[in-house]
C-alpha cells in the first residue's frame, strides 16, 4: 500500500482534515473534537479473525453449560443462559426476555458469525457476497451487544444468593469471564474502513 494523503470528515463534528494513509499512529483523532477517526493496525483483519474464532468457541461453551448452580436445602438448581431466557418467556414479562435474548445471545452470536464469514473470505482474497448489508447490520447492532453487563448481572445475583444458598459457579461463568476481554479486543482492533479497503483490492 502506498502512502497517500486523504481528506476525511469527522463523524462527530464534521471537521474536514487531511490525514496520512496508512496512518502513522495506531489511532488517529479529530483535530477539533478529539473523536476517533481511524484505528489502524496493518494486521487488524488477521488479528480480529483470530479473536473472533476464539470468542465463538467460548461463546458456545458459555451457552451450552450452566452458569451457576445453587443448593437450597438439598434442592440443587442450575440454569444456563438459554434456560434463564426461556423461563422469563413463560412469565408475564415476555417482552423483557426478547430484549435479554437479543442483547446476550442474538447480537453477540450474529456479530461473531458475521465477522468470521467476512474476514475468512477476505483473507482468502475473495470479496464476500452481501458484505455491504452485513457491515451495515454490524454497525447497527454494535451498541446492543451487552455480554459484559450480563456478566456483572450474574455476579450481582451470585452475591445476592450467597446469603440463602450455597452457590456453585458453572463452566459457562468461566467461559464468560474469558470471553469478555476477547470480544472487547476483537471489537477494538477493527475499523470497518479497513475491510472496505481490503475489499476494493479483492475485486
Amino acid at each position, binding site marked *: 500500500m502506498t502512502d497517500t494523503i486523504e481528506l476525511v470528515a469527522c463523524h462527530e463534528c464534521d471537521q*474536514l482534515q487531511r490525514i496520512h494513509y496508512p496512518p502513522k499512529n495506531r489511532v488517529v483523532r479529530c483535530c477539533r473534537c478529539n473523536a476517533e477517526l481511524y484505528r489502524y493496525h496493518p494486521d487488524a483483519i488477521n488479528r480480529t479473525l483470530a479473536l473472533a474464532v476464539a470468542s465463538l468457541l467460548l461463546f458456545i461453551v458459555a451457552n451450552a453449560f450452566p452458569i451457576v448452580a445453587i443448593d*437450597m436445602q438439598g434442592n440443587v438448581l442450575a440454569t444456563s443462559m438459554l434456560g434463564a431466557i426461556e423461563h422469563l418467556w413463560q412469565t408475564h414479562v415476555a417482552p423483557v426476555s426478547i430484549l435479554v435474548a437479543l442483547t446476550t445471545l442474538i447480537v453477540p452470536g450474529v456479530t461473531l458469525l458475521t465477522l468470521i464469514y467476512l474476514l475468512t473470505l477476505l483473507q482468502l482474497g475473495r470479496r464476500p457476497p452481501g458484505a455491504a448489508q452485513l457491515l*451495515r447490520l454490524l454497525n447497527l447492532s454494535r451498541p446492543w451487544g451487552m455480554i459484559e453487563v450480563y456478566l456483572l448481572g*450474574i455476579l450481582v445475583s451470585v452475591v445476592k444468593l450467597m446469603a440463602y444458598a450455597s452457590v456453585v459457579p458453572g463452566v459457562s461463568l468461566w467461559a464468560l469471564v474469558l470471553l469478555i476481554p476477547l470480544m472487547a479486543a476483537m471489537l477494538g482492533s477493527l475499523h470497518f474502513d479497513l475491510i472496505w479497503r481490503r475489499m476494493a483490492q479483492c475485486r
Partner: protein
Amino acid sequence: MSTARQYRLASCHDCGLLSKLPSGHGHCPRCGAALHFRKPNSMAKTWAYLIAAIILYIPANVLPMMITGSIVGVQSDTILSGVVYLWVSGEWPLAALVFFASIMVPMLKMIAILLLLITCGRRSNWQPQQRTKLYRLVEFVGRWSMLDIYVVTILAALVQVQSLASIAAGPAAVAFAAVVVLTMLSAMSFDPRLIWDPLDKEQEASGETHDAKH
C-alpha cells in the same frame, strides 16, 4: 475551520467514505448506504424517544421490579427498595453498584440528552468540546443500566423451589427495559455534529441558502 458540509461533502455513516453530495441526498458509492449531511430529523427523533423514556421512568421506579415469594409470604421490591434491602443487609458495594446502574445512570443520561437537545435547539456555541464529551459518555454508559434486568432474569430462573421460595420479575421490568431501549435509541438518533454547527455561522448561512434551492 471548514466542515465537510460547507464543501457539499458527506461522510458515510456506515463505511466512513467522504463523497460529493451536490443535491443534499444520495447513496454512498462504496457501500450503498443513504447519504446526508446530518442525520434526518435528528432533533425530533431524539426528543420523541427521550420524552417516551422520561414517562416510562415513572412506572419503572414505582412498580415492583422483583416479586419474591417464600414460606413467610410474598414481598414486592421496587428498584429502590431492592437497593435499600442490599444496603441494610450489609452489601453496600453491591447496593452502590445497583443504585448507580439502575437509578443514577438512566436519570443522568436523560438529563444529559435533555441538555444537549436544549443547547442545540438554541444553537448555542457554549462549550462544544465538553458537550461532545458528554455525548460520548452518554453513548458509552447507556448499556450498563441493563444490569438489574439481568439480575432479575437470573434470579427468577434460579430460585423456583416452589415450597421454599420463588422469584418472579415484576411489571417494572418491562417499563425499565423500555427506558433502557428508548434512551439508547434517543442517544443513537442524536447527531453530535449539531453541537458544532452553530460555530460555523457564516458557512451555515451559505449552506442553508444552498439547501433552499433544492
